């Protein structure tokens, strides 16, 4: 036994999976300490805010306390253009130039002549060609789009205009307008800004912190996996042991139910049970229990067949001849032989429990949405609020990645255990 444990610890596959799981657990344990709070709190007014650090604009305009410093930095304007003249705007500019650039006295431009990445060329061409007064056969809506684009392009350099801010006046119950001037060379120290927030994975459709949600979701999903796996393994082991060892009519009855469950696909049963429980009654633990109750079949079947071959082994006969009771024989002479298999089955059950929850939640049959986030619920929200159409990759790729990583590492652990236990058992 000790020998086996040593071998498991030396197995590369097992250890890789184990270390990944441990790192995930570390994240789950530590992150909420550093960043406490309710993961379902809607902190943003906008949906799908992209990842990054956000500073309070208001606080950085705090001119009164004179936290403004002035630098003359080379290439500042270039960077500004680079940063503010976004890809979509540049493509729109090019499109306009190619389609409407040709007029009397002004030669047209071909697609090849314009490089979307050359911002200066684009800006020059735009100012040279664009005339907001011309309709050029566009609909009003379309021409509005280009007028707004023109305003944005102009705004890249018009930083001096940001010079108004307001303060809420308690007595008058209205905003007081303050005037100040902010110029190109004004800087503030990030540490002087009172309010900022780091959103490593942005926010999702409800304006909630995705990272915080993800960490809590991992914890809930792992719990669901563990509970479901424990229930499934316990039921499967118990029924397998009893059916296999006792045999006869008991075996027939247990196998009747097992076969019944085998014929009905687990996912169908899962959906039916979850549906009948009702949205409000489905807490994460209820879902875990339901998953556990519907996934013990294969454990029971294989434990049973192993026990059936073990029970006629001579060491069991010898144990009987030594006067041991049936429970003792089952626990001491049968259980250790199936233990390694059961551990492996458990690891897989945890993994498939997590996947089952994800599947159920995607169908809208997962835990209720007001309680705790789960990986499946996060997927469901991302899908339902079309994160993929919004280009909000941060709302679903990390979740998918975490699900894949967890089940990958659990399967890796399982393979590692398999390699250690199987040749040994036959040999020993």
């Amino acid at each position: 036994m000790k020998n086996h444990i040593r071998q498991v610890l030396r197995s590369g596959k097992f250890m890789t999976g184990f270390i990944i799981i441990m790192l995930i657990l570390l994240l789950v344990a530590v992150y909420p300490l550093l960043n406490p709070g309710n993961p379902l709190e809607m902190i943003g007014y906008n949906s799908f805010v992209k990842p990054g650090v956000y500073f309070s604009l208001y606080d950085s305009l705090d001119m009164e306390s004179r936290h403004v410093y002035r630098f003359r930095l080379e290439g500042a304007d270039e960077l500004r253009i680079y940063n503010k003249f976004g890809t979509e705007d540049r493509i729109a500019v090019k499109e306009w130039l190619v389609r409407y650039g040709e007029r009397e006295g002004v030669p047209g431009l071909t697609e090849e002549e314009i490089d979307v990445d050359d911002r200066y060329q684009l800006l020059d061409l735009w100012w040279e060609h664009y005339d907001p007064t011309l309709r050029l056969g566009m609909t009003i809506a379309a021409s509005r789009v280009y007028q707004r684009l023109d305003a944005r392009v102009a705004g890249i350099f018009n930083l001096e205009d940001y010079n108004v801010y307001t303060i809420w006046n308690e007595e008058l119950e209205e905003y007081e307008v303050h005037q100040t001037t902010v110029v190109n060379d004004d800087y503030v120290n990030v540490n002087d800004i009172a309010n900022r927030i780091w959103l490593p994975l942005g926010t999702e459709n409800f304006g909630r912190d995705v990272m915080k949600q993800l960490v809590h979701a991992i914890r809930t999903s792992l719990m669901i996996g563990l509970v479901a796996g424990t229930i499934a393994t316990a039921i499967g082991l118990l029924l397998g042991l009893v059916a296999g060892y006792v045999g006869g009519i008991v075996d027939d009855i247990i196998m009747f139910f097992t076969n019944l469950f085998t014929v009905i696909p687990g996912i169908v049963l899962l959906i039916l049970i979850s549906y009948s429980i009702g949205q409000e009654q489905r807490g994460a633990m209820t879902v875990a229990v339901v998953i556990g109750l519907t996934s013990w079949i294969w454990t029971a079947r294989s434990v049973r067949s192993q026990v059936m071959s073990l029970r006629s082994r001579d060491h069991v006969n010898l144990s009987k001849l030594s006067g041991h009771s049936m429970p003792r024989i089952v626990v001491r002479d049968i259980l250790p032989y199936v233990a390694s298999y059961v551990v492996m089955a458990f690891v897989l059950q945890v993994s498939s429990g997590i996947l089952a929850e994800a599947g159920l939640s995607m169908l809208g049959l997962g835990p209720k949405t007001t309680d705790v986030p789960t990986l499946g619920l996060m997927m469901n929200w991302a899908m339902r609020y079309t994160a993929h159409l919004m280009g909000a990759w941060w709302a679903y790729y990390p979740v998918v990645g975490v699900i894949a990583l967890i089940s990958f590492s659990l399967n890796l652990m399982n393979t590692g255990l398999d390699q250690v236990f199987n040749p040994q058992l036959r040999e020993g």
Partner: protein
Amino acid sequence: MSSDNIEKAYSKENRELCLSGKGVTKVFGFGNRKTLAVDNVDFEFYTGDLISIVGESGSGKTTLIKMLLGLTSVTDGKIFFMGKERDIRTRQKKKEYWKGIQAIFQDPFSSYNIFNKIDSVLLDCIHMRGGRRLKKKEKIEMMREACSFVNLKFDEMTNKYPFELSGGQMQRLMIARIFLLRPKILLADEPTSMIDACSRATILDMLLKLRDEIGMMIIFITHDMGLAYYVSDTVYIMEKGKFVEYGSADEVVLNPKAEYTKQLLNDVPKIHDPWEFSRNRREVTAPD
């Protein structure tokens, strides 16, 4: 074959009937997958005897043994233990029965629980004989005695796992187990079939020594006619679940009646000839 015939064929004055059976039958499976493993056999085994049951592979020897031990149910027929029909319906009665009848199995490698240290096998025997309350020192002394009976050193055996022993050592430990249990009947199911010829002789000697020491009856299962002749008083020949011939070893071997027995006897020289040959040759080529 009826018990009358047995009476005529083999005299048994001054001997106590120890284990007997009437119409014992075992059927595995049902329908067209039915196997008749033991087919309506009668037998009478007497105290102190060494009985061999000889038969080829699949003739039902192990099945008969398991029935005698009460490890499998008997499909039909009755088994008598010490003159009375045996009753092993409760666990308590079974436990009592197993104090009188014990076994050594065919395959030493599957006779041990690989997760338990071998000490536990011997301790179980001491506990079964009512030694649960003995002091640890006394228990160790008993185990030491049992080990030395089978030429094993207890200090080398203790705290080891079964897979650290050789097949011969495992089987000898099984004999040590019987030494501690001191049953009236020992069923030895081909205890030497998985072991090399050298340890085979040692194990046979130990079995015989054990019989002399505690005066138990041994039922020795084998498929080797020569071996049966060498060790036993009485020989039963089993073919396809039936006893086709029985009698004293001399009678059966020197004057076989059944066709099957003759066939089995024909096989014996084939095994012994090369051995004889190599022994002669060794005598010739030996340097001194």
